[in-house]
């Protein structure tokens, strides 16, 4: 595990230095190789140098699966950053390096057992993402996105840190699992409320979602893809780990808090998504709604029952990566991500059109896709834990969401006289691969759940 951290950092630094040289073409393959080595060292679980982690990082169990998912997510996104290199942009080294640092922070977040490493992970991830949000520094929209992300992000960290500080003052321990019965029980619950609210802000669930659509819209789309997949995966994963480690001590109001957040997220998120004209904003709201669904798997979480949440991660990450990458290619040609820019995509590039259509169907929960199975598992768990009413609302909201996903698909397959939109075969191949995995996870979910259990 330690070697994974070291390799990610080394390759990130190497990528940044290579950005100064003339061999920028080597950066993305190198980053891909580094991430693959890190993935290998996580999966093989070799204990080399692990004693330097001083017990602050867990190397097995759910932490291992989450780390592997984070690194697979990074591997899925890194090849697309070569697009900047092909376009002759000099900053490709910085972008790739920062993205590797962000992945390393995400890994630290989902594997920490100590609030100190958790906080460091949150900050390593966020600071890299603030810079990436403003990557397109000549565009004022990207500037604005970077500022909004920075202000809300550091505000979030401060709230999270205040919760951690209160927990420390009350229990005298920074271990995540170290909370014991203390005299100031109500104050400890307040501290947990701060921590959970900090995470809710990071995950962007209603009513803490206000920043997400603006930030997603302004950020360069390839980094929006990282924000929607990597950052969400890391925040929800770290949240899951905190819940897991404290499962006996969690306050009784927590399920009511989740239920309230989920209800607000599903209803308001869908209602706000319907009137969006920008596809990126629509996908941002869609991400908010999906996060609400993932939180449903958190209700009355018992040990050994995390796999529906983990399966949902796979489904959501695959679909959102495909969606944002396709939006990126359309946007870089048309200069806008409005719904009109997608008209006739079915004729202009059938591969882009087909992959985004299947990804949107997966997000909507259409049958034979991983999104359907993931939703089914999570709803099943909510019903089994006595939240049938919530599950009914969720199903109704899913039906509502079909409307706005259909709006995009309808635009894609309408007629258009525009010329073809060719992309390089590597990218087509990757998009098709992700779509095939989405379908495979929808048709043969038992293989994937077997891996996750």
């Amino acid at each position, binding site marked *: 595990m330690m070697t994974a951290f070291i390799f990610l950092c080394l390759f990130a630094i190497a990528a940044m230095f290579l950005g100064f040289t003339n061999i920028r073409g080597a950066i993305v393959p190198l980053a891909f190789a580094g991430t693959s080595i890190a993935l290998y060292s996580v999966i093989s679980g070799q204990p080399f140098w692990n004693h330097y982690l001083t017990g602050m990082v867990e190397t097995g169990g759910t932490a291992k699966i989450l780390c592997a998912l984070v690194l697979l997510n990074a591997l899925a996104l890194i090849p697309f950053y070569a697009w900047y290199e092909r376009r002759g942009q000099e900053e490709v080294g910085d972008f790739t390096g920062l993205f590797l640092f962000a992945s390393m922070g995400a890994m630290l977040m989902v594997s920490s057992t100590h609030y100190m490493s958790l906080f*460091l992970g949150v*900050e390593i991830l966020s600071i890299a993402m603030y810079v990436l949000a403003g990557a397109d520094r000549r565009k004022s929209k990207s500037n604005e996105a970077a*500022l909004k992300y920075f202000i809300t992000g550091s505000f979030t960290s*401060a709230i999270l840190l205040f919760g951690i500080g209160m927990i420390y003052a009350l229990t*005298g321990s920074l271990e995540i699992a170290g909370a014991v019965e203390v005299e100031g029980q109500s104050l400890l619950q307040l501290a947990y409320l701060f921590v959970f609210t900090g995470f809710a802000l990071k995950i962007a669930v209603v009513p803490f979602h206000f920043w997400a659509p603006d930030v997603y819209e302004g950020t360069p789309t390839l980094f929006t893809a990282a924000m929607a997949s990597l950052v969400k995966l890391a925040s929800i994963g770290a949240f899951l780990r905190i819940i897991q480690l404290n499962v006996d001590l969690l306050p009784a109001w927590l399920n009511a808090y989740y239920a309230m957040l989920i209800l607000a997220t599903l209803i308001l998120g869908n209602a706000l998504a319907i009137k969006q004209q920008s596809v990126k904003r629509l996908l941002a709201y869609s991400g908010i709604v999906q996060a609400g669904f993932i939180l449903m798997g958190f209700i009355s979480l018992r040990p050994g029952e995390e796999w529906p949440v983990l399966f949902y991660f796979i489904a959501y990450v695959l679909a959102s990566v495909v969606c944002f990458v396709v939006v990126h290619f359309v946007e870089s040609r048309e200069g806008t991500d409005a719904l009109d820019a997608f008209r006739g995509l079915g004729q202009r590039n059938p591969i882009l059109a087909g992959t985004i259509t299947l990804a949107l169907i997966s997000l909507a929960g259409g049958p034979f896709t991983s999104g359907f199975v993931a939703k089914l598992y999570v709803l099943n768990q909510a019903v089994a834990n006595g939240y049938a009413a919530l599950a009914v609302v969720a199903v109704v909201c899913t039906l509502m969401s079909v409307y706005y996903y259909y709006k995009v698909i309808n635009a894609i397959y309408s007629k258009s006289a525009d010329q073809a939109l060719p992309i390089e075969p590597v990218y087509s191949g990757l998009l098709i691969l992700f779509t095939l995995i989405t379908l495979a996870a929808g048709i043969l979910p038992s293989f994937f759940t077997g891996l996750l259990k």
Partner: protein
Amino acid sequence: MNHIPEIIRTIPLSHYVALSSALFLIGLLGVLIRKNIIIVFMCIEIMLNAVNLLMVAAASYRGDSAGQVMVLFTMAVAAAEVSVGLAIIVMIYKNLKTTNIDLFDQMKG
């Protein structure tokens, strides 16, 4: 001469908690209310430093060094955040010539 933890302990812990909560609230309200980005930025720093105060006080009351080490990490992280944040503000100022938060409203809906 007394040790610093002993001097810290001459004031009850609840006073530290009250002070740092008050500082945190001031910072929080500042972020929500103020219009100038630089001031908002300072308010975030106040929030982080309120937590530092709480951590140091709790650490010396508990005789535990973990809280103090955490404060060092928080300070390093806050410094990194400041450098990135100021860079973003400079970039925005170059493009838009303003630091008023209300004028950053290109994206709505």
